């Protein structure tokens, strides 16, 4: 972010007061009004979905399990939805702070349109506050605190087409907090045969999740840990609603994958990993891909070391023993567990290095070697 020292700020204000308004970008030539400009002119003020009106102009949000009670002129936990006179608004509709074309494998989706690119977007905000967040500078801020640009849904879909992207990915921050915008982008994308994928913590209530799944094609859930204590202490959230989201996704039948970011000493206990895998097998089945991913010190946990690869490998062993068929290791470029193997004949189906696909041995969604059907969305 651009910053001036106290002396520079006051000096530039004094000089600017004496000049006329000149094009934006030249500090010393900005008018006083522009110097004291309001970043919140860039907020969207579109009425939000999923909230109840209460007495005294208060509202209760029904988008995520927090169910924030929000007074007039206050915001929900996510920081991007505000109550004004009893109407709840999303402040980030079309207000994109990050946009990029990424390989789909980066999300990561390993069983969804491999080798293709996703036009990836985010607005500010998140409804969690994970101490390890690698994108905290955009997720843990209010929208007026960062730069954003206006990207209406139709333009988003058009950019996806223009860049040759096969999907639009709602990612980087927490897309559930820009729900209304994501929904409309997904509709616009769908109308152009562009797929839609969501990268999320899964902290959303059932009704909005069901509506969302009518328009998106895949969801990747960050499953932070398998104890309530971990969710509370490290993510400031609860585990149970995320488990319910996963069960609902299975019921809906949408394609989904999971990431388990492993933090040394915090969520790497093999007993908890085993409990989680057993729960997954019982409730979600053996086909859902899970990526045990390496943590790098970040944000409020710079004191922790990077995850040892041996811990990730141990977790993979536990998941394999529990019967899960597609267990990956993430953020360790070059590791053999980045590749996909046939659960039946054990041949390598997709050879990956990082986000790059080196070789594909699938035909019509089946193992080229033994014809086993491989779960995923391959076309």
């Amino acid at each position, binding site marked *: 972010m*651009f910053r001036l020292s106290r002396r520079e700020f006051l000096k530039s204000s004094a000089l600017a007061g004496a000049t006329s308004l000149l094009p934006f970008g030249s500090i010393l030539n900005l008018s006083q009004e522009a110097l*004291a400009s*309001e970043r919140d002119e860039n907020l969207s003020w579109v009425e939000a979905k999923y909230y109840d009106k209460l*007495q*005294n102009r208060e509202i209760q949000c029904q988008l995520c399990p927090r169910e924030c*009670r929000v007074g007039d*002129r206050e915001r929900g*936990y996510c920081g991007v939805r505000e109550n004004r006179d009893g109407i709840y608004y999303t402040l980030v509709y079309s207000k994109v702070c990050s946009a990029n074309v990424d390989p789909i494998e980066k999300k990561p989706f390993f069983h969804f349109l491999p080798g293709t690119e996703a036009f990836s977007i985010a607005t500010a905000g998140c409804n969690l506050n994970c101490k390890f967040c690698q994108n905290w500078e955009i997720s843990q801020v209010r929208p007026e605190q960062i730069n954003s640009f206006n990207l209406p849904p139709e333009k988003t879909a058009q950019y996806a087409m223009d860049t040759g992207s096969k999907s639009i990915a709602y990612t980087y921050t927490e897309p559930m907090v820009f729900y209304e915008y994501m929904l409309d982008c997904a509709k616009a994308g769908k109308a152009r045969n562009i797929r839609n994928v969501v990268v999320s913590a899964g902290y959303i209530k059932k009704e909005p999740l069901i509506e969302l799944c009518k328009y998106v094609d895949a969801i990747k859930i960050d499953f932070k840990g398998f104890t309530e204590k971990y969710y509370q202490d490290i993510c*400031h959230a609860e585990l149970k609603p995320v488990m319910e989201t996963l069960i609902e996704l299975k019921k809906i039948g949408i394609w989904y994958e999971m990431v388990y970011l492993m933090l040394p000493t915090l969520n790497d206990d093999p007993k908890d990993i085993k409990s989680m895998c057993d729960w997954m097998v019982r409730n979600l089945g053996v086909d859902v891909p899970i990526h045990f991913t390496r943590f790098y010190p970040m944000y*409020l946990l710079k004191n922790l070391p990077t995850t040892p690869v041996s811990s990730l490998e141990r977790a993979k062993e536990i998941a394999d023993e529990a019967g899960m068929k597609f267990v990956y290791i993430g953020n360790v470029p070059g590791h053999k567990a980045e590749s996909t193997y046939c659960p039946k004949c054990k041949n390598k189906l997709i050879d990956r290095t990082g986000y790059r696909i080196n070789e594909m041995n699938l035909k019509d969604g089946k193992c080229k070697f033994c014809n086993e059907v491989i779960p995923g969305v391959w076309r």
Partner: protein
Amino acid sequence: MSKSRVIVVRHTRVSDKSGRVDSNVLSSMLSAGILKLTQEKDTSDGLSHFFNPTDHIGMKTNCLSGKNSSTHPELAYAISSMLGKSGVKNKNIFIWDRSNRELKEAGFKINTSGDGPRCFGTDSYGVGYAEKLYTYKNIGSLFSRIFIDFTDTQINLPVLKDHTLAGITCGMKNLFGIIHNPNKYHSNNCDPYVADLSSMPLVKNKIKLIICDCIGVQYNAGPSFHPQWWEKYDGILMGTDQVAVDFVGYTILDQIRAKSGLPPLKKIGEEPKYIFTAADVEHNLGNVDLKNIDLVELKLD
């Protein structure tokens, strides 16, 4: 912990029925309060307990709820005038809040370079938040550069209101406006977050004085303005102990509620728990026991 002195000054003519504030009356209330707080005979001598003439002094207002329920500009400017008389230059006085929009809606005039004290929001171009992420207990936040870089000391200039989540908003809750992510700290009735932030050494060492605007008090359904639960209290509340000032504010609010037939906040589960947390052994920020608060009430008319 030694006794904490808290002064409540009232004058029925500080505001009229339309809400217009009489700056002369307000100035006399401020002087009386400073003199009583510091036990000096002269206001400048009183202010010298807290500030040097070369200090860059911030005044953190609370302008969240618009003109009817925010810190009165007259209060900020009256304090600026007092500081000016004690040798502090106008350009070294910073009246501020999070955003220019909120300041303007509360009746302040944005001033970054003209005559008079400075007045602008953290969201001004070139200002923003300091890059360093400060952590303390449950807090992990970026701080306004007005707080970190632009000023040496602060006067906390809150307004006393009911707050449906926190219980009340007074001095300590007003500090949520100095960080970039207060929305993350409202669960569990803002407890222990308000206490954690207020007791952070970076914060508590900079807050020299709290002067709470109680000219009008929103005593129910706050923090937004609801005229049916707004009382013309005609007061200011001042002290140096953050906890004691908030505690006295809480008792005032409950007294107004009782007068209006509303139950005390504790009875409806809206006790401001953070005040007691701030006073606990771990935070040790100030006095929450009336036995340890030297409460002085001045009625000037």
